[in-house]
């Protein structure tokens, strides 16, 4: 690893500590301010005051807020995210159980958005202002603005219920058939952004002098596009993809709900409803780390794509 790469990694790793502290403190304070009591929520509609008091003691909710947060941070320093109030299991175990499903979905959705988005962007950039360009850009805007819930339901109705080609929902045995519809639905969110960014970036690059020179040398259009234009247009696209991957990892609760996908998004939404603070804190911390790692990967990708950044 080069010195520059080491510096990038070091900078990002150092950012983890303040990010973790800031994010968890914010979540903790918001939770403390929110109405609702995990002990009461755990009791159902009929709450016995004596039992509520006992559960509050068991959960250490009867201690001052500062002591509660301090205890949580002390456990975190030992690598322990605590125990879920609701599931009465280790938060680490709960998160690790969900992480593979979320990771699979996010990666598959990213693959969909990159393949389709770059292709759409490149096609549109070939003849700016043409009918193809307009149709592709309109489709991209449609993809960005279509509600995930609606798109998921429509895809499910057509490809699962009517045609019977794919399963309606669920994780199955981890097979690809169950992955297709959620990945396409979630991927559609970012396909439009990737397509628009690719088109814009390509158009800018193709107007550069070196592209005119290459064209004058008689290089074929596809070679020009793939070998010279795409690589140079890739930097902003990689940023969109990197941040998009993080968005897809943490922002999938709607897709997970429509397709009954057992991922981290659904876990977090349910935990907020149950006031299951240890799970909320643990999940949010993981999501914050995902963003840090995604930014790190984007920075490293710059080093690979753009030789100028290596020299800095």
């Amino acid at each position, binding site marked *: 690893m080069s010195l520059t790469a080491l510096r990038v990694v070091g900078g990002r790793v150092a950012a983890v500590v303040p990010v973790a502290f800031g994010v968890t403190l914010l979540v903790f304070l918001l939770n403390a301010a*929110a*109405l*609702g*009591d*995990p002990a*009461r*929520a*755990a*009791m*159902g*509609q*009929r*709450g*016995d*005051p*004596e*039992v*509520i008091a*006992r*559960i509050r003691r068991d959960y250490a909710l009867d201690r001052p807020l500062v002591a509660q947060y301090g205890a949580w941070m002390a456990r975190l320093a030992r690598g322990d995210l605590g125990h879920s109030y*609701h*599931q*009465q*299991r280790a938060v680490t175990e*709960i998160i690790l*159980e*969900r992480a593979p499903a979320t990771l699979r979905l996010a990666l598959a959705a990213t693959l969909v958005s990159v393949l389709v988005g770059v292709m759409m962007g490149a096609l549109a950039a070939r003849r700016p202002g043409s009918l193809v360009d307009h149709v592709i850009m309109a489709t991209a805007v449609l993809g960005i603005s279509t509600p995930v819930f609606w798109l998921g*339901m429509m895809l*499910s*109705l057509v490809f*699962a*219920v009517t045609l*019977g080609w794919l*399963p*309606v*929902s*669920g*994780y199955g045995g981890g097979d690809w058939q169950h992955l297709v519809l959620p990945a396409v639905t979630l991927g559609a969110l970012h396909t439009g952004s990737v397509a628009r960014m690719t088109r814009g970036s390509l158009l800018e690059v193709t107007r550069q002098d070196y592209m005119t020179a290459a064209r004058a040398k008689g290089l074929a259009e596809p070679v020009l596009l793939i070998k010279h234009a795409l690589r140079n247009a890739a930097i902003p696209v990689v940023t969109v993809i990197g941040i998009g991957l993080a968005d897809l990892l943490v922002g999938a609760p709607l897709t997970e*709900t*429509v*397709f*009954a996908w*057992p*991922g981290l998004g*659904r*876990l977090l939404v*349910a935990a*907020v*409803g*149950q*006031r299951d603070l240890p799970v909320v804190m643990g999940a949010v911390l993981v999501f914050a780390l995902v963003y840090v790692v995604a930014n790190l990967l984007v920075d490293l990708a710059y080093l690979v794509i753009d030789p100028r950044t290596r020299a800095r």
Partner: protein
Amino acid sequence: MRPRIGPLATAVLGLLVVALVAGGAAQEARKSGGTLRAVFVSDPPTLDPAEATDLTSAAVIRQVFDALLELDERLRPASALAVSWTVSQDQRVYTFKLRSGVRFHNGRVMRAADVKYSFERAARGKRPWVFDKVVGARDVIAGRATEIAGIHVVDDVTLEIRLDRPFAPFLYLLAYDAASVVPREETDKRGASFASHPVGTGAFRFVSWRRDDQVVLERFPEHFRGPAALDRVVFRVIPAEITRFNEYRAGQLDLTDIPTGHCQSAQRDPQLRGDVAIWPTLGTAAVRFNVERAPFNDVRVRRAIAHAIDPSIIVDRLLERCVTAARGILPPALPGYNPEVKRLVFDRDLARRLLAEAGHAGGKGVSPLAYHFNTTDTNQRIAELLQAQLKEIGIALELRRLDWAAHLKLVDLGSAGFFRQAWIADYPDPENFLTVLFHSRNVGAPGNTSRYRNPRVDRLLDEADVMAAGAGRDSRYHEVEQMIIDDAAWVSLYHYASRALVKPYVKGLERSAQSSAPEFLAPLRKVWLDR
């Protein structure tokens, strides 16, 4: 001489033959094998009977565990782990004879000591009220004792339970899933993880649980009633109702609920109408007032609002007549229901007059009013209908929607003056509605969120709760119910119904009033698949 057989005798004989043949055919027709694919709206929080407080957990627990008793299709207590029982003259001592040779899924034989242990363990759990009538139970609940003094193991198959005072619905409590029997060695070995590795005596044993995805059970061949017909039961977890509906239509579920807004269309759909099953359950949806807060401390204001609400609009337009408009508090499916109960009639003129009498003519001094409800689409739409109805008498309703945890807290604390509340009976007895929801000792979180205090109501409830079932008991509850309605501490909107889709090949699924789609509490050991 040939014996003479008259036409009546011939007919009777004929009927007997037909019945025998049909009965035999029915017996033969009960096919063994297959997997029932059921569904839940959310992941069960736990599979431990001591920790569960929700219907989803109960739906699994009832298949994996047995209790001393169970309720039959008509909600009568019937034998389960207890083969027989007697009740003392003073209605305080219950003696149960247990079945011998019943085995837990781990192979060990269940004994009376397991029942005592299970009850003591569950009394320290989240539903202590199931046991708090037993002598010494409050000490265990409060952590002052580890054993319930009123539970006595006579021998391996005999158990005696002594109550503080007579309590007519006590047998119902012993059929409740909180009273399921667990093996001590498994709870000791697994600790908190017993909640995800349950071991009981039930007709199905636990196989696997992938959180937020599915719970799988399989037939327990050594169940004391004989093996169930189904090989397996898979409970999928599908939060979106439209996805459940699509899975059902795609043939991937054998039963589910009917999505909101599809109740009439499902009954008209040629492909679905044969699968639609609607039956009344033990729930009532209502709006309540905190009678301690102004302006609801004035009964005229409460009555004015009650007279301004027309529940038939909610039932006809919003819920597509798939539920019934409520007259009283107790649902018609509940034993002890009073068909003569009278609601405060929908009468806007009377409502306006009452408001004026209270010094709030045209809503002056009370409008705008905050109405609190927990977040669901149906609750939102009901709130909007209420808003439109109260506007007619000059009251502007401000809608305050909160998630469940926040709504509970607000209502428990008495901070909400006018709010939505529904109640589903834990067991089929008026005590579980009226005493829990309106007795002054239950003010706040235990159930009386109206903070309603009426000494006469308390006295009648105290009398009825200890009386044996019969006309005297029923008449007290009926009087209490009418008093509460007239006092407008609670305004019923509609009674719940289970709205289900069940594939025609699913046979033997009990449609009892305790069982509601999609979390069916019916015993799945009776279910078989005709395909």
